[in-house]
């Protein structure tokens, strides 16, 4: 049925190669390829399948935090307590193990602690909506880390390598593919699917784009924020599990500044801190870009500090890219006039 004026509205998206190729994700793919070409030239051992898979082990454990962090950014929220949550949940895993609890149950304890931390974050922020998420999670960041320090002090809690299958979570492989890689890909697909194909995902974008309008559309904004914060706590604990499996022991200073790495991966992936923007494939690409860049620079023994400078510059330049593009377009328009 057309309107009174007989005007018919088109409901099919016309396909355009231009918009297809002018996507941020292609830009990331390009960077990803460039980094791999660079790495392959730096080290003759780089470009082998098993070498590449091994490389992923060097960064994927923290990438589990970047997955829910993308959701946090879509909402226009912030969570900088994730590193501390990873630490406190890994510590509780080790403590539980040393108290004689079977390892499988310890992992459950670890995940529960992370979930609880996320729940605390979420409850504070959804009950007191006027508080800034950055400040609340700064507080809990210090709090969770403080608890871990209070329990362990300078000591470590370890002996986790005694359980072979637990170590294998991090070190184990199926063929040439690390187990952690498989887990990560499954999780990433699930997160991407939920964000782009489900009603829940649509709600996240709606809240991040205009919280008030979302509320008037009947979306339970605070409930959804709570769910996402809890999810973030849970996946910070997943990072905690892999971290404990890698190191075999835990200390109160592990996983520091993981929050910043997770945020940079999400931002580089195209998720704006203002909320409402981003495509999930971008985060996955960004995770591998940063990871492979670090790995490649490590191969030629670039010192850690120089590595930070390079990654910092990469982040700044890439997030500036869309603005630069706009400015070029603007000045071109001006010239044409």
């Amino acid at each position, binding site marked *: 049925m057309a*309107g009174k004026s007989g005007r*018919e*509205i*088109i409901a099919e998206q016309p396909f355009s190669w231009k918009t297809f190729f002018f996507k941020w994700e292609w830009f990331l793919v390009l960077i990803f390829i460039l980094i791999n070409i660079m790495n392959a030239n730096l080290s003759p051992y780089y470009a082998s399948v098993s070498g590449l898979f091994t490389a992923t082990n060097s960064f994927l454990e923290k990438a589990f935090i970047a997955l829910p962090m993308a959701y946090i950014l879509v909402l226009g929220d912030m969570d900088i307590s994730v590193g501390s949550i990873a630490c406190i949940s890994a510590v509780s895993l080790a403590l539980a193990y040393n108290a004689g609890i079977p390892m499988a149950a310890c992992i459950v304890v670890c995940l529960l602690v992370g979930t609880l931390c996320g729940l605390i974050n979420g409850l504070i922020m959804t009950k007191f909506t006027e508080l800034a998420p950055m400040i609340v999670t700064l507080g809990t960041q210090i709090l969770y880390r403080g608890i871990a320090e209070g329990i362990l002090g300078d000591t470590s809690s370890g002996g986790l390598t005694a359980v072979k299958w637990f170590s294998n979570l991090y070190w184990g492989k199926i063929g040439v593919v690390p187990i952690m890689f498989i887990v990560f890909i499954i999780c990433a697909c699930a997160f991407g699917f939920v964000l782009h194909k*489900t*009603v829940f995902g649509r709600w996240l974008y709606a809240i991040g*784009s*205009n919280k*008030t309008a979302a509320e*008037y559309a009947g979306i339970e904004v605070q409930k959804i924020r709570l769910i996402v914060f809890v999810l973030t706590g849970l996946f910070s604990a997943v990072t905690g599990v892999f971290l404990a499996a890698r190191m075999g022991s835990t200390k109160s200073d592990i996983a520091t500044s993981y929050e910043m790495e997770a945020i940079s991966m999400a931002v580089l992936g195209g998720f704006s801190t203002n909320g409402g923007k981003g495509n999930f494939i971008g985060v996955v690409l960004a995770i591998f870009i940063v990871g492979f860049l670090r790995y490649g620079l490590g191969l030629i023994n670039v010192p850690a500090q120089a590595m930070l400078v390079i990654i910092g510059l990469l982040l700044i330049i890439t997030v500036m890219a869309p603005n630069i593009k706009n400015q070029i377009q603007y000045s071109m328009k001006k010239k044409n006039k």
Partner: protein
Amino acid sequence: MSEYVLELKGITKIFPGVKALNNVQFQLKPGEIHALMGENGAGKSTFIKVITGVHKAEEGEMYLDGKKVNFKGPKDAQNAGIAAIYQHVTSYPHLTVTENIFMGHEKKKNGIIQWKEMHEEANSYLKELNADFKATDEMGTLSVAQQQMVEIAKALSMKARIIIMDEPTAALTKRESEELYRIAEKLRDEGASIIFISHRFEDMYRLASRVTVFRDSQYVGTYDVDGITNADLITAMVGREIKDLFPKPQVEIGEEVLRVENLTRTGYFKNVSFAVRKGEILGLTGLVGAGRTEVVQTIFGVEHFDSGKVYLEGKEVKIKKPVDAMKHGIGLLPEDRQKQGLILDWGIGRNITLPEVASYGKNGLTNDKKERQVAKELAERVDTKVVTVFDKANTLSGGNQQKVVVAKILASDLKVIILDEPTKGVDVGAKAEIYEIMGELAQQGYAIIMISSEMPEILGMCDRIVVMCEGKVTGELDRKEADQEGILKFAMAKSLKATQE
């Protein structure tokens, strides 16, 4: 001396791809208030910017007191005694009134600012305007009406002879508008010429002696206010005859759908009761600040009430959040369509389907194809002027945006539709279309509640009118017995009573 203090001839202003002004003319007599009217996008704002030197016209001439002038920038216009007061006051909220008044032309002696002198002069302007605040007050603490007074004081301080007011009453209450009328008349009596832009016919009849109408970037005509009727003016503005601006259809009114009893929210409203029936359009009116918006927000579950009951088809319902209201079949078109109604950088399709997005797919999944189809049908039903459902909401005009919000409400299965100021900031043509949609919805059996501050649409569209004043229902009128005076009497019941005592 020329007959006109300001005259523009053959002005054409071209923006890339559009002629924003096409050969328009305008004459302003000394000491007159001249209304400038037209639909949104008719070119009024561009025209003002040409006068004030912000834009430079590609063609045409401008004369001040019969002498040809050529402004290179806003500064030239200011020096020539032209000042503009905009709808959204562009001020410095953290600075004092004095600083705002003298911004850009401070009083200096040897490079040192003469504060005492400036404060004194500022206070003298404020006194002249009968202002109830001081020159040392911080701008941000003032109301919109008071801030506009500061802008007027600024115009006075620059010795402006031609003052342009761009929709000054849009954000003002009735009383504040009266005060503004008084000031405008005073300025006129002192010899200033005023160009007054407004959507409100009321403003024009009250103030202006002549009115110039623009339509589609072109000059339509200049008329004496005394000699023109409402209908003529609308025809001039819209370019087609709107035989009846309020196409209220005759609808068989059915049984009661929604009833609220003794709704109270401390500090906002008290003991509010009313009911609306199937096919009925109930008007909820009163002065700005009477608590109308708060009442409907409470019914919709955005806010919570302290006591009272809400009945739907005779049964009491508990509404704690908007989703409850929607499940019960109550929909709200919020007052601020840009902040509350739309996600501006989304396509209109996704905006329309947002409230019911869960119902198109299965198992929590979205169904893009179905969504697009639903969005297309609803957007066509309210006759939105777009090409595709992917057109972004922020590219539409106010009236079209409002239609998208209406379509969005219609996506849900509703019994009661609450419209909060549905025609605010919408031009005459789109207004008529929104009224038409309202009429159709009533015919389709919806119970409709319309909040409005505009008397003509309340009188023109509503079957029954509930009037509120300071958080209380002060009167209820039937369509047949309602008139402007009757409504005003109830709307100002409190202050009338106070003066009698």
